[in-house]
């Protein structure tokens, strides 16, 4: 049977001629389609593969792609009416690199509209369902990607993380999700949400796979001026020092999640990991800071959707009127809310009090982490204060929804890498541990994540 395969399983199976590239692809495509009726994790499928790859380190590995990353010739909807009929005219750099290694795209996964949300409910294609409990959300915004990996609709998936959009759905669905250091992976071909925060990263069945994908997609790309080549570092994991921020364990953290995290910390200690309490004093300001900066950047990025060059276009009585109508019709409620909030924070008279102030607080949040990383190698903590919640529960209250990202947004503000590793369950719902380290130390993070994986 061709199922429950990791990247290594596929690569080895093809090498040993246990199955062919075509057989793996067709088997995964069929399963992805069958399960999609129930889970709604995919928006579109790659129906006509013309040329099968013949070589590469990922030969024949079928994967899914968040529908905010461009794949030439395939739709890229961002789950929005604005791009419902848009076809990508080029490949994102990460897609080019994976295709070059022989990996095959199965389809594009469902998400919150323009990657704005925390539950994958804000989609014109309907919400993504959590395979652990269909009444619950998958997390967001890369919810479809997380579900596709957990449900074996794909071997791995590419997502993108602006404030937790890879790590939080990974935690809610019980898969591994990496948000790389800002600049580690090219953003070329990713539909921009907030350009100083966005990063593309893998969602996988285990840490090994996440490392394999990261190694292929990482590195300098001349099409993204913020991308950087990573230096290889070797790092012994004998004397691992881990900091646990006391602020991450205060009010708001659900008891069940806390218990799972504390249990894994204890197990890690038994393995010789030195754990100490640390403080990130500006933690509570991360969420308000994030919402000012991300909405400000989003309001500028989304200005491009004007109905002139591509996407939805609604005729007005003049050019000006057409802009208003196209945006009013094309964007959903959450996107409109963020465009409004961002435009307000950047507007004359409010810029200093909101946007500039948030940028200054961003410096303090970054400094907090730098201080802590002088003392420890890693920070361990929860990914989200609660497990997957019921669909609709937070939909009418934007602030309540935003709380789902309270432990993840600070990494985007500081540009740090973080991984979510499944470490247990509360009430039968998965809980992820977040492992954070200093910029460009992904290799270190993989080592620590593998240790955690082995003891859970």
């Amino acid at each position, binding site marked *: 049977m061709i199922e429950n395969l990791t990247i290594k399983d596929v690569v080895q199976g093809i090498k040993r001629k246990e199955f062919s590239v075509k057989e793996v692809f067709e088997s995964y495509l069929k399963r992805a389609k069958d399960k999609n009726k129930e889970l709604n994790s995919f928006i579109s499928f790659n129906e006509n593969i013309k040329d099968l790859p013949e070589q590469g380190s990922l030969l024949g590995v079928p994967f899914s792609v968040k529908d905010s990353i461009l794949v030439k010739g395939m739709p890229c909807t961002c789950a929005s009416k604005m791009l419902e009929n848009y076809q990508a005219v080029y490949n994102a750099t990460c897609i080019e690199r994976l295709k070059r290694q022989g990996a095959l795209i199965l389809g594009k996964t469902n998400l919150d509209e323009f990657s704005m949300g925390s539950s994958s409910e804000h989609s014109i294609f309907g919400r993504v369902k959590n395979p652990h409990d269909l009444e619950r959300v998958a997390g967001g915004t890369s919810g479809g990607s997380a579900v596709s990996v957990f449900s074996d609709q794909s071997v791995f998936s590419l997502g993108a993380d602006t404030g937790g959009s890879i790590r939080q759905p990974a935690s809610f669905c019980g898969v591994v999700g990496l948000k790389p250091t800002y600049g580690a992976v090219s953003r070329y071909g990713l539909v921009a949400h907030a350009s100083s925060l966005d990063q593309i990263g893998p969602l996988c069945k285990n840490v090994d796979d996440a490392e394999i994908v990261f190694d292929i997609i990482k590195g300098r790309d001349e099409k993204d001026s913020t991308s950087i080549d990573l230096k290889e570092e070797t790092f012994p994991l004998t004397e691992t020092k881990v900091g646990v921020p006391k602020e991450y364990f205060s009010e708001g953290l659900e008891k069940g999640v806390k218990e799972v995290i504390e249990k894994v910390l204890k197990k890690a200690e038994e393995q010789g990991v030195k754990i100490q309490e640390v403080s990130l004093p500006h933690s509570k300001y991360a969420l*308000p800071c994030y919402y000012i900066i991300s909405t400000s950047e989003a309001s500028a990025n989304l200005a491009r959707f004007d109905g002139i060059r591509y996407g939805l276009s609604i005729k007005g009585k003049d050019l000006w009127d057409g802009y208003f109508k196209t945006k009013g019709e094309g964007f959903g409620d959450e996107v409109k809310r963020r465009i409004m909030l961002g435009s307000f924070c950047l507007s004359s008279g409010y810029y200093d009090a909101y946007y500039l102030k948030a940028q200054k607080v961003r410096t303090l949040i970054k400094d907090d982490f730098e201080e802590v990383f002088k003392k420890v190698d890693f920070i361990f903590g929860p990914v989200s204060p609660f497990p997957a919640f019921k669909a609709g529960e937070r939909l009418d209250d934007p602030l309540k929804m935003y709380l789902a990202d309270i432990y993840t947004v600070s990494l985007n503000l500081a540009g740090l890498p973080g991984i979510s590793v499944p470490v247990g369950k509360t009430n039968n719902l998965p809980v992820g541990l977040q492992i954070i380290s200093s910029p460009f130390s992904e290799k270190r993070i993989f080592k620590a994540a593998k240790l955690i994986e082995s003891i859970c």
Partner: protein
Amino acid sequence: MISKKEVEHIANLAKLELGKKEVEKMQGEMNQILEYVEMLNQVDASKIAPTSHSVPLENVYREDNPEKDKSEMLNQAPETEKDFIKVKGVL
């Protein structure tokens, strides 16, 4: 607190059409969120330098050569004429 008039002003800046009911709902939600982000007032950051990017940026230069197929791009446009995208009169 921002007024309904301010909401309409911001929507105008963003070139976003909002219905009457949307303006009302938006006003309530924006005020709720703005009240929450007021939390930042507790922080004295007067002497702190702002961070716009977590990684220091440098200018990167390259030749500006077209490399993509123009017709594919134009195919995505709602209205074209010859090699151009057609829009309503600006003036």
